[in-house]
């Protein structure tokens, strides 16, 4: 038998679910405990932020919200490996990555609270994309960004994240395919949390790993324990380095679990068993890293409490800022449609303003 091609996909994990090292060759960044503490702190604050969001929704102060519970290692791992000049294109729940890059909780609240201004990031890089609801489309934005960087000969990388469900969409395939064909500086991370709303991973694809989708595009790929931030970040660093060095694109599958409902509009008990969720909690990325840090003497209960208190303060401030944001004037509907409002729309804008005044006074 003659062989046309052969492939092998690596699985990467440094910390097991109890925070024990399963291999000795820790990457350089993981040896810097101060930095690891910073990553841990962001994972914790992401979780505090997330709980606050859900609470806001439950009390009617937010619309539908998509929680990131359980994804903290994957998301922070992605965000923290990137440089500021790189560009990030997310779906909707990758707050851990975004907070690292400077998106403010108040902005997240505004977006899910029905106010477009949440997308006008004040501190995060202006070249990071807005939340992207149409599944998969962000992958092509990242590919286009990568192409722009390549055309301009800039040493920058475009990163996109996509769900297990989203990796079924033609856009994902299109993005990795053109990235392979044109050697674009792209890193596509499949955050496989096992569910796409109610649809389990096995209904999305007959492939044994999602990482292997990269083979279709001729790209290097790896599957990592997405609840092990060391593994996620190491895979990211390798992929980013390759991309930055002109070696082209990569795919990473980060295997994790969506511990919460899909969004606050969803009730996961309708479609998945409690056992599965219970089992998934044993792999929770946050205590895992905490145990590892504690074993190294870099973290303890006092620090945890202090940090949690700081996070609470932070979120309170963010919530205040959010709640104090006045609704946009009605003409905001028109004012960001075109660089300049076309003459044909002037009357409509005025009509909206007049009607609003009339209704209010």
């Amino acid at each position: 038998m003659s062989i046309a091609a052969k492939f092998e996909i690596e699985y990467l994990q440094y910390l097991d679910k109890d925070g024990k090292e399963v291999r000795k060759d820790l990457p350089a960044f993981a040896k810097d405990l101060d930095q690891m503490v910073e990553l841990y702190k962001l994972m914790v604050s992401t979780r505090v932020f997330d709980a606050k969001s859900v609470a806001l929704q439950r009390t009617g102060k937010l619309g539908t919200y998509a929680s990131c519970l359980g994804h903290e290692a994957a998301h922070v791992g992605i965000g923290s490996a990137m440089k500021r000049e790189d560009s990030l294109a997310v779906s909707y729940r990758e707050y851990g990555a975004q907070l690292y890059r400077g998106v403010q909780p108040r902005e997240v609240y505004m977006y899910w609270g029905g106010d477009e201004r949440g997308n006008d990031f004040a501190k995060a890089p202006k070249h990071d994309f807005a939340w992207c609801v149409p599944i998969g489309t962000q992958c092509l934005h990242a590919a286009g960004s990568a192409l722009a960087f390549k055309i301009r000969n800039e040493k920058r990388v475009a990163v996109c994240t996509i769900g297990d469900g989203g990796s079924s969409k033609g856009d994902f395939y299109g993005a990795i395919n053109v990235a392979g064909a044109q050697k674009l500086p792209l890193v596509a991370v499949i955050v496989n949390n096992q569910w796409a709303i109610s649809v389990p991973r096995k209904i999305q694809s007959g492939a044994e790993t999602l990482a292997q989708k990269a083979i279709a595009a001729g790209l290097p790929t790896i599957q990592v324990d997405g609840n092990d931030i060391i593994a996620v970040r190491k895979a990211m660093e390798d992929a980013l380095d390759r991309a930055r060095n002109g070696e082209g694109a990569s795919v990473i599958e980060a295997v994790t679990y969506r511990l919460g409902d899909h969004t606050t509009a969803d009730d996961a008990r309708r479609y998945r068993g409690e056992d599965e969720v219970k089992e998934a909690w044993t792999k929770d990325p946050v205590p895992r890293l905490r145990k590892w840090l504690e074993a190294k003497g870099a973290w303890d209960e006092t620090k945890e409490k202090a940090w949690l208190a700081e996070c609470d303060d932070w979120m309170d401030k963010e919530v205040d800022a959010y709640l104090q944001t006045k609704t946009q004037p009605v003409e905001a509907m028109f004012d960001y449609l075109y660089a300049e409002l076309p003459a044909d729309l002037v009357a409509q804008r005025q009509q909206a303003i007049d009607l609003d005044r009339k209704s209010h006074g």
Partner: protein
Amino acid sequence: MAQITLIEAVTQALAYEMAHDDSVVVLGEDVGVNGGVFRATQGLQEKFGELRVLDTPLDETTIAGLTVGLAVQGMKPVAEAQFEGFIYPMMEQIACHAARLRHRTRGRMTVPAVWRAPWGGGIRAPEHHSEANEHLFTNIPGLRVVLPSSPARAYGLLLAAIRDPDPVMFFEPKRIYRQYKEEVPDDGEALPLDVCFVLRDGTDVTLVTWGAQVKEALEAADALAEEGISAEVIDVATLTPLDFDTIAESVTKTGRCVIVHEAPRTAGFGAEIAARLMEECFYDLLAPVQRVTGYDTHIPLFRLEMKYLPSVERIVDAAKRTLAVS
């Protein structure tokens, strides 16, 4: 006989037809165990199995193409787009194949398929969950575009859509999914796919609308009645092929017309009705036809969305404008 909501009427129609016709299958994202994100397909997978109520991979292009393939091979697929705002990737299959295969093959291959999608704004949903894009389909020959606005019409029109030998877009106004209940006998009786519904008789002005805005139009008619103005209200419901005769008859009688829809005004389907009225009822018009629509901008996120949607006030104002000029 139980009282049911519009969404329950959708489920009832699906269950009825699946029970009576083995070739009917449902496919889409989350339509199985979860019963759809709005519960339109609730309980169907339990009753009819995983293949006839199929959770697909997350790719609208795939859903649309499977639907065409199923239909060509003799099935009657009912595909769901989870929200109408996610229907774009389905368009190539719908426009290039579903609407054309009968034409292309001189009748050899046909596509008796239905595409369902929750449609429209007003439920404080996230971005892309509030679109009203019926006009993307009203100019595709070979398609039917249907938009029910009551439980009974949802039931009867969905049955008709499934039984129709040609492809039908079936948009469901999610804002009124659970607005009220009415008795809808589960008798398998379909409604015609090419007849507008005159919901209220009137003599002074005709309000023409469809979808969730039927609610506002009826309320506007009430408000106008209080001022002694008699408004006729027509629910177009089957946009294309259009039953223009019913509209023309009414406007010939009243001489005045206000068209109400929540999609943006420019090139919305209201333009077509206005153009037809001009062409065919010009000499009966006592005033120019008015359009009350969404503005020519994207439906805003929910803090502002109610200011975008046509209000009772705007409809009443427009009706009065048509009356002011004669």
